[in-house]
């Protein structure tokens, strides 16, 4: 056991899915189906978001609405009065030379997020604040010069700041996934991490176990996938542990994460830290929220992922793990609910969704282009439960349906995925396997039951995954017994 414990706090930037930018009428995101990369450079700009002299920001009410919605979903206090501030720094992709953000008085105060760890253990992490701000543009460095694209400048963001009270990379990852589930579920954020809609900065420090004061903190900036956040934090904990164990001291700095090397690297030391010279934004009046308006938003909130998870566990008897994954995205919940309508049994369905379906979705990184329908899942569950297909075939079928959208019955036929329950065929495969592994077979005969799994697996392999595993086992036992 290490002598140190890690203290982790996350700052998550969620791009709000508003129609227009936060301070002007430019579109905040490309039209549906168009990638950010395909919008011509500096097309989605106007004099306001390009920072032309004399232009003024005018607050987008929808952005405030979304921030409040996120705040309410995370149990935050909603501040009836809040204020915007200017964060001043020079960078080519910051057209005004300052970012309009909230500093002293954010729109949402204290809240909390409850979630499950992969082990099923429950955690609650307190949220410090949520504030509204504008995004900067994007610098692209080309050879010896740099190009600035302001399409993103002025896109509304909320920054959700947790208390520094997570201890492990795994816990931070689970928090991040749960937060992602909430903001996408309430539809304030698209949550597309590849496009930078959901970005995370992690503050990591170490302290001796039992200490109450925080150690020197390192900020790991802008990591853009759940897995990389976990890896970056894990690496950072390892790095800092090594420094402290060897008697050194951790330097306060900002670090980046390089997924290729699986390591963090120094970006900016404390001495290079900016003095942002915050002061109240004089171009925007104080933001006041009427209680009735906040109540209205509250009344429109849907059932939240964690509430739904608890209900699925309670009412449908799903495992905590399956229920957690099924409720982690709108798409999974939709498949779940609609497939049940089509007659699928909930536990088997949850298993499939938590397993192959979410694996595929993660692998693809997007649901766009998927042709998978609830009827596919309902059919696969039915075939599986009737033992007409194997679990392996079920996975294959989901992949095929995702790509082609063909009927499951047709796919089984076309790909020959029907489970082989023909005893003669199974016996022939089993005999071949026995002939190849005579030593193991004699062991099984002398009572080593554990090897039944080995033989079952070998037969499955020979059958190309189509053999009915329950029948194979039955055959083996019969053969051993005879």
């Amino acid at each position: 056991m290490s002598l140190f414990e890690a203290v982790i706090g996350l700052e998550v930037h969620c791009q709000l899915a508003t129609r227009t930018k936060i301070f002007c009428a430019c579109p905040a995101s490309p039209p549906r189906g168009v990638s950010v990369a395909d919008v011509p450079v500096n097309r989605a700009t106007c004099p306001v978001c390009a920072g032309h002299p004399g232009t003024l920001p005018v607050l987008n009410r929808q952005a405030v609405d979304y921030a409040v919605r996120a705040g309410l979903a995370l149990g935050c206090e909603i501040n009836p009065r809040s204020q915007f501030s200017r964060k001043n720094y020079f960078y080519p992709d910051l057209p005004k030379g300052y970012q309009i953000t909230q500093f002293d008085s954010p729109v949402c105060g204290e809240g909390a997020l409850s979630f499950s760890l992969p082990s099923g253990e429950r955690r609650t992490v307190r949220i410090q604040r949520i504030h509204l701000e504008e995004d900067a543009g994007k610098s692209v460095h080309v050879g010896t010069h740099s190009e600035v694209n302001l399409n993103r400048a002025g896109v509304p963001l909320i920054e959700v700041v947790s208390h520094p009270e997570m201890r492990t990379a795994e816990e931070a990852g689970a928090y991040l996934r749960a937060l992602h589930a909430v903001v996408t579920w309430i539809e304030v954020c698209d949550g597309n991490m590849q496009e930078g809609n959901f970005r995370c900065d992690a503050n990591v420090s170490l302290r001796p176990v039992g200490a109450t004061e925080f150690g020197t903190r390192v900020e790991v900036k802008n990591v853009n996938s759940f897995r990389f956040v976990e890896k970056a934090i894990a690496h950072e904990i390892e790095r800092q542990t090594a420094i402290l164990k060897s008697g050194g001291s951790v330097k306060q700095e900002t670090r980046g994460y390089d997924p290729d090397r699986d390591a963090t690297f120094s970006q900016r030391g404390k001495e290079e830290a900016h003095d942002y010279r915050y002061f109240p934004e004089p171009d925007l009046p104080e933001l006041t929220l009427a209680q009735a308006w906040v109540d209205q938003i509250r009344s429109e909130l849907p059932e939240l992922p964690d509430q739904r998870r608890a209900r699925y566990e309670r009412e449908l008897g799903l495992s905590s793990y399956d229920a957690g994954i099924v409720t982690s995205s709108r798409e999974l919940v939709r498949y779940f609910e609609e497939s049940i309508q089509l007659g699928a049994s909930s536990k088997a369905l949850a298993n499939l969704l938590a397993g192959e379906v979410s694996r595929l979705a993660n692998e693809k990184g997007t649901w766009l282009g998927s042709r998978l329908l609830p009827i596919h899942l309902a059919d696969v569950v039915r075939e599986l439960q009737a033992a007409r297909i194997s679990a392996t075939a079920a996975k294959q079928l989901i992949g095929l349906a995702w790509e082609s959208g063909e009927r499951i019955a047709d796919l089984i036929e076309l790909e020959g995925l029907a489970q082989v329950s023909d005893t003669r065929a199974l016996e022939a495969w089993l005999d071949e396997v026995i002939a190849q592994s005579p030593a193991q077979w004699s062991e099984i005969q002398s009572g080593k039951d554990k090897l039944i799994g080995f033989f079952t697996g070998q037969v499955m392999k020979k059958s190309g995954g189509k053999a009915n595993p329950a029948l194979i086992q039955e055959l083996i036992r019969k053969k051993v017994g005879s």
Partner: protein
Amino acid sequence: MKTSMRTISQIHDAFDRRELSPIEFTRGFLARAQASKLNAYLTLFADRAMAQARHAQEILDREGVTPRQRHPLLGIPLALKDNLALQGQRTTCGSKMLADYKPPYSATVVRRLEAAGAVILGKTNLDEFGMGGSNENSAFGPVIHPTHSDRVAGGSSGGSAAAVAADLAWAALGSDTGGSVRQPAAFCGILGLKPTYGKISRSGLVAFASSLDTVGILARSPQDAELLLSVCSGGDELDATSLPEAPYAPDESGTPFEWSGLRLGVASDISESDLDPEVARAVRLFQERLCGLGASRVVLDFPHASQAVAVYYLIAMAEASSNLSRFDGVRFGSRAPEAESASDLKGFYQKVRSQFGSEVKRRILLGTFALSSGYRDAFFRRAAQVRRLIARDFDSAWSRADVLVLPVAPEPAFRLGERNSDPLKMYLADRFTVPANLAGLPALSIPCGTTSEGLPIGVQLIAPAGREDLLLSIARALETPEAE
């Protein structure tokens, strides 16, 4: 004919009687402006203005008489301070930084003026980004006083004030952050109105100090100031700090002003020894004149007035340091040739930003300091607190007075070059004008005589927020024969 006309209404009468045509009217202003040596204009739009004048002429010919409701400024040649955006036209802010900057949009006020039928003659000279009180901080040279060529015209709206006073524009827009409309108006002998903060949209006014900036009006008569205010004012969805209200409605009732009952507030802490004797005398005579007409005089305490200049400069400089950040040579601000060869970003910024004039640099540096971590509480935050106390002083004054009377500046127009080396003295000269900006109140500078040398003197009236009507009624009433 020209000398007999004092108001836009009289010009429109002349248009209607065909004694004057919009085309010849504009041509006359352009000719005088082109011949002028005052350096009041940085850019003249000869062709554009003539096109607008011809358009006005067409409307007049078509309608028979001036459609005063729809086009209240039809054919009236105006000038704009060169920190107001006019689409596609150079908007320099008196700075080398923006020598070639052409905004892709027009300021809300400019759009409103043009929709009202105004002819825009050109853009006037100013202290760089509005920072100064003599127009000597312009990168394009100072404006010369219209009647005394060795004197300044005041600033920062010196070009606009000189243009109106020298008949190079009928009226003009300026901007007033700490007195920049009222002081040059006083120096040049015309009216200068700084409206309530938010009364006129700031959209398109290049920011100096956003919480203090107002678009102001330089005019020859209270009637014109009212008319211009009615065109320029009214809520604007492009400016979140603009007051969400209907445009100003000029008083057309013709009811004579009721002098008795008017309570004139005067500040207890202003001593005449603090002022140029001729200014002191003119302001005193002005007060006596109003009292002679029936007003009563109330002496009021402004406990925090002595802090106003310090508070003003801290806030103005802090906001300016941020507002001027965008002039970094990336999107805005001309790229000095040597900046292209800078080896890193810092070097690049250094080269670009060294193009600011020395007063602007001074203010950016002081403002940056006032906001720096470790100093923000002692300087910026403290200043913001005292600003609220100054506003409260005014609030309590309004229970005892209807309007305040103050000098505009402690002295008349000074000599060119006389003050360049003493920024502190320049800052302190703003002590009578900055309080209205700190409290967001309307204030009007009215001519009130001349010095023995013939230099104009101005007096300032300050009213409660939204009471431009009171200021303008007083100014109007002062022009009636009974008030002479």
